[in-house]
């Protein structure tokens, strides 16, 4: 298991207290492991589950660490290395792909100055692809956290990136 930069720096994202709080909020119930890990990932601010957080979940819920990592690596919404604060996931399934999703990808790559699969130097954006997000009637579509953006155009991509960079949810209403 490669150590994440955070783990090397000796701290856990989110804080150990926050991880324990999240686990407590699910009653430390192993059945709720996936839900708890999703919350932990969200609270990390960097869209990943830190090794230390996984260890805490393992100890608190009394499930083997391998089982925690089995979940983290099986489900595609999880990451075990830090990603950007915003993960932009462009739908690559057929209905979106054949509505010029590749062009949209290039617009994102240009606007963010990263290639697909990469995180920018500031840790703000990760650009990646995803399987269907269920917005096929609005293809091409992309998901950023809980939000889904549809019928993407070059202009929309530019406005979305600006709004996400400024962390201003109000400015992307109607996008």
């Amino acid at each position, binding site marked *: 298991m490669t150590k994440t930069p955070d783990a090397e720096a000796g701290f856990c994202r989110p804080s150990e207290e926050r991880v324990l709080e999240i686990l407590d909020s699910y009653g430390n119930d192993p*059945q709720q492991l996936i839900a708890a890990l999703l919350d932990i990932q969200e609270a990390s601010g960097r869209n990943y589950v830190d090794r230390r957080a996984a260890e805490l979940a393992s100890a608190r819920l009394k499930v083997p660490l391998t089982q925690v990592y089995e*979940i983290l690596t099986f489900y595609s919404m999880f990451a075990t290395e830090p990603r950007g604060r915003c993960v932009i996931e462009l739908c690559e399934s*057929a209905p979106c792909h*054949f509505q010029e999703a590749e062009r949209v990808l290039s617009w994102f790559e240009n606007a963010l100055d990263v290639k697909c699969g990469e995180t920018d130097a500031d840790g703000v954006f990760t650009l990646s692809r995803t399987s269907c997000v269920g917005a096929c009637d609005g293809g091409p579509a992309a998901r950023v956290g809980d939000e889904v953006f549809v019928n993407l155009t070059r202009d929309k991509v530019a406005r979305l990136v600006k709004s996400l960079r400024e962390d201003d949810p109000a400015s992307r209403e109607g996008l």
Partner: protein
Amino acid sequence: MSREKRLITRGLGEARPESVSDYEKLGGFAALKKALELPPEEIIAEIKKAKLLGRGGAAYPAGNKWEHLLRIPERPKYVVCNADEGEPGTFKDKLILDKLPLRLVEGMAVAGAVFRAAGGYIYVRGEYRAIQKRFQKALGSAREANYLGRNILGSGFDFDIEIVSGAGAYVCGENSALLNSTEGRVGRPRIKPPHLAEVGLFQKPTLVNNVETFASVPLVLEMGGRAYLELGHPESGGTKLVCLSGHVKRPGVYEIPLGSLTLRELIFDSDFGDGVPGGGAFKFGHLGGQSGPIFSQEKLDAVYSYADLRKAGLSVGSGAVVVMDSSVSVLAYLKKVAAFFVHESCGKCVPCREGNRAVLKRLSDLEIPSALSRSDLEDLANIAAAMSRASFCGLGQSAATHLKTAWKAFPAEFERNLRENAAFGAGAR
């Protein structure tokens, strides 16, 4: 007049999604009251009369599934809703979860009452996290009105529904994988038998139905099984939510009576898809998600019902209808589908895990002139057959359907680049 038939989608856009009183004005919760009073056998008899087929994709008769579970004496029993809608091209369960949540809540509560279930779970895909939060509100208002919770409407019956989130795994749409995931584990399918009605969630007898199936149940009870059947096709009653996407002018969800329209009408009529945009020509369609069949214009006159599509070698599946215009190469499309399955295969069984990789490799090679010979094509057919016959779960078994059906519809695209057909290099091996 539109040929849509608004049953499930009645009140869509008018009723506030989480408002119990709005839903009651549409006749809501009358079915639950019936289910609390009538013997379970009578409720199930109506569902059987209605010939309600499972709307998730497998089209298993809901009445038979319910009857099977009712006959099992072991307790407790659980009711689980499959809201893992992961088939690309499918977004109708999202519509119900987001805009018509109380219809689904009622359907699940009816099932809860029929089986006197210990609890209900709804497994919603992780990609719908925002919708999960809104669905939570609908559950809250149903509890407030005592349609969920303790002693529902004074019946002495307790029932509640808990939301469980997925985290990005197509295979969790398979019911047994979904139950594993609900238990907090990795979502790989279980071996069957035992049937989930016998050994399901937490090893207890369990009903798993799709969102749209549950949402249809109150309508069956409201209008009666016979009337529901008559509204649809003699072999499959009622309406179906159809998801149009891809190269159509009017993509979206349309509710239609089963057996009332042809594929051509769905794709081209101005009430529905309104044809291909940008002056393009229809080339092929893909039904029921990535695991469903591909059809060319020859099959456009097939009627949209489970039985008629089956006769035409097609299937309803999830209700997806993805349209592609003549700019799209069949091989390029199939590669995209195969890449999806490579990514989404859970890796448990060899036919699916390795089969999909082999299919993707050969499809890529088929795009290169003279890379493959006719015998390689035979190999591809054998791989597809092995996947269908030997895969562990239904998803693996149907992961080659796109390939087999597209091949039948467009044989020339498969053969064009074969060594035997190329201008150069014939017999070069």
